[in-house]
């Protein structure tokens, strides 16, 4: 008995001890570590895993009174209803258009801005500009949409005041279907371009300075150095960012759209989440809207996994 305790005290792993005993002893030894992890583990179970299991209501006629266990199972009925609904194509089109416009107009800008910043030799100037352009990232969409409304309002916004002062007629920015997607893109550009430069600038900093020295000796201009050294060096980072972006093509700035949405632009503004919110939370169609959300999540999951596979194949570290 005494030797037994001594062995435990030394935490030696005896091959003759049954496995379950050892496991129990290890758990006992680390009980405070488990205690530390407990609130976090509970959080992930209750707020991440229970909802993951909760998506089964997409296959039910869920009623809050009956609860998940008593509600009737209906199979894929809600999915069939969603796919045969004209809303489906509208949501899909809006999501794709907003994403593609962002890809086309927003995506290249951090790269361009990084290259411009990289050419700046005046250190304080560079730091100042960086400080300024990073700031909007931290502002909430409510603030940014609010400022947009204040500046672009047709009746009182300064932009329309200037247009009128210059002799143009005022322009309806906020309730205009034709320019709604572009407006979203511009907001995104204003908010996130600076932030996007951080990763690109980091990649540029990692370029071996000797390459530039060699190019200088060969008489290459700054432009040529950018073209032949900087761009090829950061090409991989750009490709990976692009792939990851494509993996998230179903994710549009939902808070932004929710805030920018109004009766006049619903047609072009409605995306999966706003639709889920309206039908689920506001109209109480829990099962139907869960099915819509689940469809989006599954497509998103497949795209993210595919994007990661691709990124890893290119020799870069993926998302997970």
């Amino acid at each position, binding site marked *: 008995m005494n030797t037994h305790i001594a062995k435990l005290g030394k935490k030696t792993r005896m091959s003759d001890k049954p496995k379950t005993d050892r496991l129990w002893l290890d758990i006992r030894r*680390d009980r405070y570590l488990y205690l530390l992890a407990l609130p976090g583990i509970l959080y992930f179970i209750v707020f991440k895993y229970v909802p993951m299991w909760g998506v089964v209501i997409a296959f039910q006629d869920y009623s809050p009174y009956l609860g998940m266990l008593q509600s009737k199972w209906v199979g894929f009925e809600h999915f069939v209803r969603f796919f045969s609904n004209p809303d489906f194509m509208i949501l899909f089109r809006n999501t794709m258009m907003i994403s593609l416009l962002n890809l086309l107009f927003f995506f290249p800008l951090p790269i361009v801005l990084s290259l411009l910043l990289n050419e700046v030799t005046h250190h304080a100037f560079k730091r100042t500009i960086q400080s300024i352009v990073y700031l909007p990232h931290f*502002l909430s969409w409510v603030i940014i949409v609010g400022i947009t409304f204040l500046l672009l309002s047709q009746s009182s916004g300064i932009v329309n005041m200037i247009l009128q002062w210059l002799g143009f007629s005022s322009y309806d920015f906020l309730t205009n279907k034709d320019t709604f997607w572009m407006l979203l893109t511009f907001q995104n550009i204003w908010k996130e371009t600076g932030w996007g430069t951080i990763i690109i600038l980091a990649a540029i900093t990692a370029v071996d300075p000797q390459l530039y020295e060699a190019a200088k000796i060969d008489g290459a201009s700054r432009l040529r150095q950018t073209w032949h050294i900087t761009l090829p060096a950061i090409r991989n980072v750009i490709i990976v960012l692009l792939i990851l972006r494509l993996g998230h093509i179903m994710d549009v700035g939902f808070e932004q759209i929710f805030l920018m949405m109004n009766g006049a632009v619903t047609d072009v503004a409605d995306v999966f989440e706003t639709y889920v919110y309206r039908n689920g939370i506001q109209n109480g169609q829990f099962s139907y809207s869960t099915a819509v959300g689940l469809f989006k999540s599954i497509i998103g999951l497949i795209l993210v996994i595919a994007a990661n596979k691709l990124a890893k194949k290119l020799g870069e570290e993926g998302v997970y």
Partner: protein
Amino acid sequence: MKQSIGSRLFHAANYAVLSLIGIVTLFPLYYVLVVSFTDSREYAEKNGFILFPTNWSTAAYEYLFSTSAFVDAAAVSTFLATIGTALSLIVTAAIAFSLSRKRLRGRQFILVAVVLTLLFNPGIIPPYLVVKELGLINSVWSLIIPVLTSGWYVILMKSFFDNIPVELEEAAMIDGSSDIGTFFRIVLPLSLPALVAFGLFYAVAYWNTFFSAVLYINDYAKVPLQIVLRNMLVDSSTSTGGAAAVEMVSEQQIPTQTIKMAAVVISTLPIVCLYPFLQKHFTKGVMLGSVKG
């Protein structure tokens, strides 16, 4: 080294373009700040063409601080950004530390389970039903508990704790400290810079809390600042209407431009004050986090 004319032109153009970008970024914020301090009569006279007010006025701010709706909402947001941040930091650091100890049984399993939560998003409705079942609807806690921690932050903080040498921990153990004692007395103080960085990011997220409140708070007395701001700024007629409806607009007269702008300034101010500290830390954060988001 002497520069060619082309290169000098390029540099001049580059500085001009970058300055322009800086101005375009700052101008909306500057304009909002200036108008918020402008006398409402001067604002009306100049039709909004104000780059620098001649008559300064703090009337808009005085008005806002006299309305209970705004002050209460600011208090809710402050509560979230302080208590919420503190709770999030403790919970995140505790599980991250626990998972960083390689001897822990089941560590790999828990880690994988945490990472999986990042891949699949169950949408809006299932979490909403969970919050509802827990009876958190209309409670400020519904704005904290469902976002208490996140897989990213756990993983990031864990990789930070991985670098704390086991020897330090062992030394504390020999002195009779338990794992919990070690965590609070050795690990947390050693990780202060990281905690500050994570705390800043949590604080900004809590201060900017908006959509959770749309979902979970119907009682107008408990909404955070972003909701009040939305109701003030985004015209009620063009609003999509959230759970926290547009009661405020009917409750009082529709705010004038200067009042709206003052509201923007007040809600932006804490972020701007934190910004220098944020800036010190975010490069690390981006490299590890945002890109992977």
